[in-house]
């Protein structure tokens, strides 16, 4: 906890100068706040070596290129990838998934093939596959999860026709970490490609490609202290070689004549145009920050917060919690409703108390429909949150009840 107090000083926004009081930020599943180390890296780039990469021979362009490529290597190390060329920079998870749907999907998915997603997916890991299936005459199948995070219909859904399985490692809407072991086994047996959406999971737990080897892994830098505008797409080398470019333009080719083009080496073939150089370089600073604070300690801290918040919220009869009350399968997200109060009203009242939470369907409408809800209030923790903040939240929730029910 002492360490948390100290590291909060690294996050200028938490001091809440703009709103005149400390910001209580409980919407980390949407995006996390950024430490000074990341913010200053952005300025450093623009003030000292702003230039385009991979193109020029002058000094600052070379410096920018080196810094950019170092982050690629850093990510490869972070994930224990075999080759930095398996790491492609995009603008975010959404773009990473769409890149796969076009570069891999257009070329390899055929009429009658099947693509499998789960009922826990964010819209960004659902809609690209639905659209691809519609374009190709392929079939979209959905894995159904139970409340323990086990999928109950693996045998009905994954089979010989399955070409691709795209599943989340952790639900952004309810925090559930599904059990993917059997999905993996069934997928490998079927010869299907496997895509893991790590947007929520990787910021909390990292990922080791040595332990689990999917064909694709995607996540966003902005959900793990990095700036907005950087996404990571890991593609296993052998799969990368089966893919066509996504965007066509500069930097992705080595030779162009009117008749022929030669694609650039991997991964540059997939990075057409000027990338978010400054953002990538400062994402490197975010990875350094996470490395320094020790991710296991962070997980313990977030588990403590989650358990504490469950305990406090469970005491209030009028609060119905949707997320699993078990930190083995919950990555620090609690979705709930205050009975008879619309989530947006709860959100607005909490906002007046300086507390930022997310309300609504969290871009996971299939899951909301299954749960029979139109929306929830969602709190989600990251390394800088504290028990004091949870106490303030709980008091504010009591205020919600007073406002709505203390009448006559």
């Amino acid at each position, binding site marked *: 906890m002492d360490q948390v107090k100290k590291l909060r000083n690294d996050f200028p926004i938490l001091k809440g100068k703009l709103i005149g009081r400390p910001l209580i930020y409980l919407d980390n599943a949407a995006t996390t706040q950024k430490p000074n180390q990341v913010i200053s890296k952005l300025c450093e780039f623009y003030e000292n070596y702003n230039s385009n990469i991979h193109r020029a021979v002058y000094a600052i362009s070379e410096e920018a290129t080196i810094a950019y490529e170092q982050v690629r290597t850093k990510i490869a190390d972070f994930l224990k990838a075999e080759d930095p060329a398996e790491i492609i920079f995009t603008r975010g998870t959404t773009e990473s998934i769409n890149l796969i749907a076009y570069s891999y999907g257009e070329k390899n998915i055929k009429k009658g093939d099947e693509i499998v997603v789960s009922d826990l997916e964010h819209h960004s890991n659902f809609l690209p596959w639905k659209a691809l299936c519609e374009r190709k005459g392929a079939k979209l199948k959905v894995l159904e999860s139970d409340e323990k995070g086990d999928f109950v219909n693996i045998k009905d859904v994954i089979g010989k026709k399955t070409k691709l399985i795209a599943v989340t490692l952790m639900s952004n809407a309810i925090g559930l970490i599904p059990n993917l072991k059997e999905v993996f086994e069934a997928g490998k047996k079927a010869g299907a490609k496997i895509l893991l959406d790590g947007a929520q999971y990787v910021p909390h737990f990292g990922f080791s490609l040595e332990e689990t080897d999917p064909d694709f892994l995607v996540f966003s830098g902005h959900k793990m202290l990095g700036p907005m505008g950087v996404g990571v797409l890991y593609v296993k080398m052998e799969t990368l070689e089966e893919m066509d470019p996504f965007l066509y333009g500069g930097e992705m080719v080595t030779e162009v004549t009117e008749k022929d083009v030669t694609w650039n080496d991997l991964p540059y073939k997939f990075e057409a145009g000027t990338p978010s150089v400054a953002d990538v370089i400062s994402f490197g600073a975010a990875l350094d920050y996470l490395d320094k604070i020790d991710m296991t300690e962070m997980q313990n801290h977030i588990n403590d917060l989650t358990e504490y918040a469950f305990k406090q919220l469970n005491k209030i009869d009028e609060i119905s919690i949707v997320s699993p009350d078990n930190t083995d399968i919950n990555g620090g997200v609690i979705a709930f409703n205050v009975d008879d*109060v*619309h*989530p*947006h*009203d709860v959100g*607005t*009242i909490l*906002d*007046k108390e300086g507390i930022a939470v997310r309300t*609504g*369907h969290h871009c996971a409408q299939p899951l909301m429909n299954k749960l029979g809800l*139109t*929306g929830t209030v969602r709190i989600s923790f990251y390394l800088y949150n504290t028990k004091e903040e949870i106490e303030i939240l709980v008091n504010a929730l009591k205020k919600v009840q007073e*406002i*709505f029910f203390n*009448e006559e």
Partner: protein
Amino acid sequence: MDLYAELILDHYKNPRNFKELEKADIVFEDNNPLCGDKVKIFLKVENEQIKEVSFMGVGCAISIAASSMISEIVMNKTYEDVFKIDKNQVEKMMGAELSVSRVKCAMLGLSAIKKAIKILQNEK
């Protein structure tokens, strides 16, 4: 000043004109996908003027209270006067400033009434 002042909560808990109108000239349904708010407007009209209005709906306190208040305001108003009601007046009516994300909730009922009137005008 306070969005959840008594007036708004009163309109939320006891919405006025909250019923179906029989023999309405038009029934129009609209929604706000962000919140999942839904509203169904019933209008009886005569000579470009609203004679009776009612609504049904589900949603947050802001959208229900605003629809309730607006239903009282538009009663017996001409189409022209209804079209003149804007966001400023809605804020005044609710006695609170609305944040960008909540304006849509407050405007849902009014905008459904305006859309319904436009349909009636086009039918002619």
